[in-house]
């Protein structure tokens, strides 16, 4: 088990993170983390509660101060602000969904397109309504009145409204019923398969994650302790014991 990240497909990485350190105030949470996401793949970060998964996501998106080398499509982005990072093509669905609860469903989608200009925004809204028909039914409602599953769909649709090249999802399954979670992962898988969207998902639920992942990173106390293809990771005894429980 090597701590160096390998790349499942051997393709030049879309997102390349090296030696990432970040934290809150005096507390350093990430201790030099390395990970890569290739163009067109679904990558998953597995880790227990408090391992630093959310911190990793926030550091990539520029929401907290961080150090290290991060490149996106070869462009360095460790010093960029969150809005610049969105413009580069990375959209994040934060943990707990982060919808704009006081805004209507439709305005949430417009909010997602904030970095874009042009008339095709309205067309995109319609397109995502086609993918998530439940949202169309509720487009005049405030997002806060939606159910958890609907809000998660909305959060994903909103992130996609910026037409990202890479989608970051922080624990999308949190607080959702199992059947809704499966539906959700099916949608993510379809987005990847049909549109070639690259996705980085953070999960505690290893079974679910391994089901759709191409490559997997295991995060423990702020560092990647194992990485490989989904198959390699499922066959790794230590990982299986810790995260799959058999």
């Amino acid at each position, binding site marked *: 088990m090597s701590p160096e990240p390998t790349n499942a497909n051997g393709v030049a990485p879309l997102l390349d993170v090296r030696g990432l350190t970040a934290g809150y105030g005096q507390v350093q949470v990430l201790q030099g983390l390395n990970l890569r996401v290739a163009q067109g793949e679904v990558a998953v970060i597995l880790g227990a509660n408090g391992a630093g998964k959310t911190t990793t996501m926030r550091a990539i998106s520029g929401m907290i101060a961080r150090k290290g080398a991060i490149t996106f499509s070869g462009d360095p982005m460790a010093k960029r602000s969150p809005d610049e990072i969105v413009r580069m093509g990375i959209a994040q669905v934060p943990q707990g969904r982060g919808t704009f609860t006081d805004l209507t469903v439709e305005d949430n989608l417009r909010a997602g397109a904030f970095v874009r200009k042009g008339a095709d925004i309205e067309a995109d809204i319609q397109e995502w309504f086609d993918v998530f028909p439940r949202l169309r039914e509720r487009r005049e409602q405030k997002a806060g009145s939606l159910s958890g599953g609907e809000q998660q769909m909305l959060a994903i649709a909103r992130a996609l409204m910026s037409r990202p090249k890479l989608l970051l999802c922080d624990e999308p399954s949190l607080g959702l*019923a199992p059947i809704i979670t499966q539906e959700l992962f099916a949608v993510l898988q379809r987005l990847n398969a049909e549109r070639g969207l690259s996705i980085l998902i953070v999960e505690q639920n290893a079974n679910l994650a391994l089901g759709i992942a191409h490559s997997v990173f295991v995060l423990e106390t702020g560092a990647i302790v194992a990485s490989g293809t989904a198959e390699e990771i499922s066959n790794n005894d230590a990982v299986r014991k810790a995260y799959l429980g058999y």
Partner: protein
Amino acid sequence: MPFHIRESSPLHWVLRIISVSALAALAVYIASDSAPSTLGKITEACTLAIAAVSLNLLLGFNGQISLGHSTFVGLAAFTAGYSVNAWHWNPWVSLGVACLVCFVLGLILGLPALRLKGPYLALVTLAVAFVWPTVARKFLDQTVKASTLKGMRLRPPTWTGLSNNRTDRALFLFWLAIVLLVVTYVIVRNIRKSRIGRSLVAVRDNETAAAVMGVNLAITKTVTFGISAALAGVAGWLAAAQLATLDENSFTILSSIKYLLALFLGGAATLAGPVVGAFSYFFADDLLKTNATKWDFLPGPLSKGPVASFLLGVLVIVFVFIAPYGLVGFIKLQARRVAVVIPRPLRAAPLATESTEHISPAVAGEI
């Protein structure tokens, strides 16, 4: 490497005694050598300090903002002045009554405060401060049939050896102010260091968690409001003793803002902060008022006119950047490089035995 001092160790006590004696010596020196006007100013500063200390209990330690403390101060001053002048009460009795009246009004104001958070509470208490002078004017004028109320004149008791002339009265009032300030300070200090003090802070930091740990929110918050109001009443009584006439316009929102500034400049949620802040604010203001008109080096229109209050505003803003946690916060930060006081471990606090882990996370699994 800073020097470590254990709390309440002999060394800590020696340091405490030295600093208290130094302050006492300073007071004696000032008293022996100052004109009545200077003593009067210090008395005024003490009044401000008492008000700031009382506000600190409420805002600093319990997290409830009040812009209405001028009302308590004014109410106490009027209660004292009125009962002494109209009913010929003993002034010392009026101190108790004034505090009691303020305590009750504080409890009453504490009730809406239970429902209201942060800025909403700020604005409601602001409204109280705004309404108070009107109420005072309307209702007191009707009964007293005079445009102003007389303040009360305290005769120095015979055992002090002071006679009833202007100089001696000023001296007596000076010592009285200092005693009242010390008493108020000690009351707040003891509350803060007690178990109740820890529940006050717990409520401030996280109401829900405090409630789960068994703190009665309603009682804690309203009683704190009441005690804080009663202590503000001490300041009002002192003001009534110092002022020849009581004017309802002496106790407006602007006074409340002054208490707030004194508290923040000194350092909220520290014990010494409001006292240090009140004295610094009072004398900075006084210094600017007496001297700034003479500063002809100031550019353009600043060299004439009421420049003092402008400079005070600017000073306040600049100061916040230098010492965002107030003077005491600033001094503590600097002093920490020299010496650190290690707090005593808490004796088994029944508060802490209930673990917060019993709270079930309100994560809804709904669809």
